[in-house]
């Protein structure tokens, strides 16, 4: 639709690309946290991002829905380049679901209200219709019986599944997960990963920051390894795990896979 911009885009970025980073840089004060990030995410594909603590993984995926603002380069989400226009940002955000490490459910609302809040107020969907969808999704994440409780009354794993359902309510085109299982006890990790695997099998586009390498092997189309603000390695999982090129990747994998 915007002819002036389209010539600068590589050909593949038209229809089947949902998120694209082009030469993205970001600083926190003087600290150069993202250094020349270039990444393309195709529709329906699953990207797993890993890397040591402080390497900028969270910062990168939070740039996609502009919870963080990058200073240089271009981020294009579903055809819209992110800029300061508040209206456009709100629109982009509605197409991007996000699941946080510590759930961030709204504690003053019941589970159902957590799910229906945004659809009712943002999309103007009638309340009973939204509630019907909410129950469908709760069914899908396997906790329909918790619908009328408050988040504080649920276990961590249940809360995270509510958070996933909440993000799905807006029918997002891409889902972002920032270490969704790292605040959970081991026995709850599986129940959340199961839901995520199911979601992946249903064809959802996903960008997942995680250290759950079993999950990564199972669903990832592309593994991205970050260190110190840079993308060090990007490869399909079989190559990434069996034959990593960079020494830093090897070191990281050896550390993370020993336990």
């Amino acid at each position: 639709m915007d002819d002036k911009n389209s010539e600068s885009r590589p050909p593949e970025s038209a229809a089947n690309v949902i998120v694209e980073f082009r030469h993205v840089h970001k600083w926190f004060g003087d600290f150069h946290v993202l250094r020349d990030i270039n990444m393309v995410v195709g529709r329906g594909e699953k990207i797993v991002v890993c890397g040591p603590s402080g390497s900028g993984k969270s910062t990168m995926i939070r740039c996609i829905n502009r919870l963080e603002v990058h200073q240089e380069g271009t981020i294009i989400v579903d055809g819209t380049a992110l800029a300061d226009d508040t209206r456009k940002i709100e629109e982009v955000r509605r197409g991007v679901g996000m699941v946080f490490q510590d759930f961030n459910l709204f504690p003053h609302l019941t589970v159902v209200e957590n799910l229906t809040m945004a659809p009712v107020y943002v999309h103007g969907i009638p309340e009973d219709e939204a509630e019907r969808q909410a129950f469908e999704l709760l069914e899908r994440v396997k906790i329909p019986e918790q619908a009328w409780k408050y988040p504080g009354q649920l276990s961590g794993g249940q809360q995270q599944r509510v958070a996933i359902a909440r993000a799905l309510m807006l029918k997002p085109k891409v889902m972002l997960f920032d270490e969704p299982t790292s605040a959970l006890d081991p026995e709850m990790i599986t129940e959340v990963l199961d839901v995520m695997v199911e979601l992946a099998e249903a064809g959802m586009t996903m960008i997942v920051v995680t250290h759950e390498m079993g999950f990564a092997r199972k669903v990832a189309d592309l593994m991205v390894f970050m260190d110190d603000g840079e993308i060090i390695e990007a490869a399909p999982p079989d190559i990434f795990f069996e034959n990593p090129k960079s020494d830093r990747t090897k070191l990281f994998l050896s550390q993370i896979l020993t336990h």
Partner: protein
Amino acid sequence: MGRPQTVSSAIVVSAPRRPPPVRETGIVAWLRSNFFNNIHNSVLTLLAAWALLVTLPGFISWAVTEAVWLTDDPKVCRTAAGACWAVIAEKHRVMLFGTFPYDEHWRGVLVIAIVIGLSVVSGFKRFWSYWLFAAWLVAMGVILVLQLGGVFGLRETGTHEWGGLPLTLIMFVGTVVGGLPIAIFLALGRRSNLPVIKSLCIGMIEITRGVPLITVLFMASLMFPLFVPEELNIDKVIRAQIGMILFFGAYAAEIVRGGLQAIPRGQYEAADAAGLTYWEKTRKIILPQALRIVIPALMNDIIRAFKNTTFVSIIGLFDVLGATATALEDPLWVLYAPEAYMFIFVLYFCFCFSMSKYSEHVEHDLAKGRNF
């Protein structure tokens, strides 16, 4: 070789389940655990008991047995050894309604009943809806009609005739109803990203907080008329009301801001990520949580606002305290001012204590089923 002997050890046993040990009950156990649980507390208990024994009989004989309860003759009081509660019966109309015309006092009674009635209703969470808000708006309209008169065949009574408890309650309700929205906007504005709005709000808050309420009221009543043309001269009650609203708003704004700051960043991010606009986020996610946190502190300020209504007597309005002072200018009864003021003391205490209990109740109500 093996490793060296470990020091740690644990013993394997099998202990059957049993109920917890029975706690001592009964009056003696209660006394012991509350009043005599150690030597210091025992000494304090005995001292306090002694102090009560010394003072209480004197007070009871003054306040009850030797008191004069009802008479319209102050001389009777003069001969009695105890309190003269008769002054209250004699002067209660002036104390409660100030200079409001005597025959119209029933209107003041209605105003008091409406305010108290609606407040009680507002205390129950099941009545919380837009209807309640509408009811308050209607009530304020009715109160104004009752106080001002001039319509429906009511005798016209200007604000210069207002006084007593109705005036106190009107000032109080007006201050809270007008001041809370201002407080919320000031608190939000103070956290705004827009420098103009931010500095305006900071300025408002700091200037208002930097001066005593009396100064604000003097400004409103004495200086304000100097600066505006005469035909724009706004009624004194309204000017005082605006002054009190601003004063309350500035203080409450800082309390609300504290609540806003207590909301974790993740809540803002989750709301942002869902694509909520600033106002949707504020109204649906942030404010409900922030206000819940600050209810106790806010109630503290609301109670203070109630007591602050007494300051209006400085600019010549007769709230219930001011009206009492006027009532006691009667030389026949002036001796019995302490008794009259004790009545006012009890009156204020009843109002403030119920507000305090009310906030406790609301807090408890909101906490049901949630742990955050």
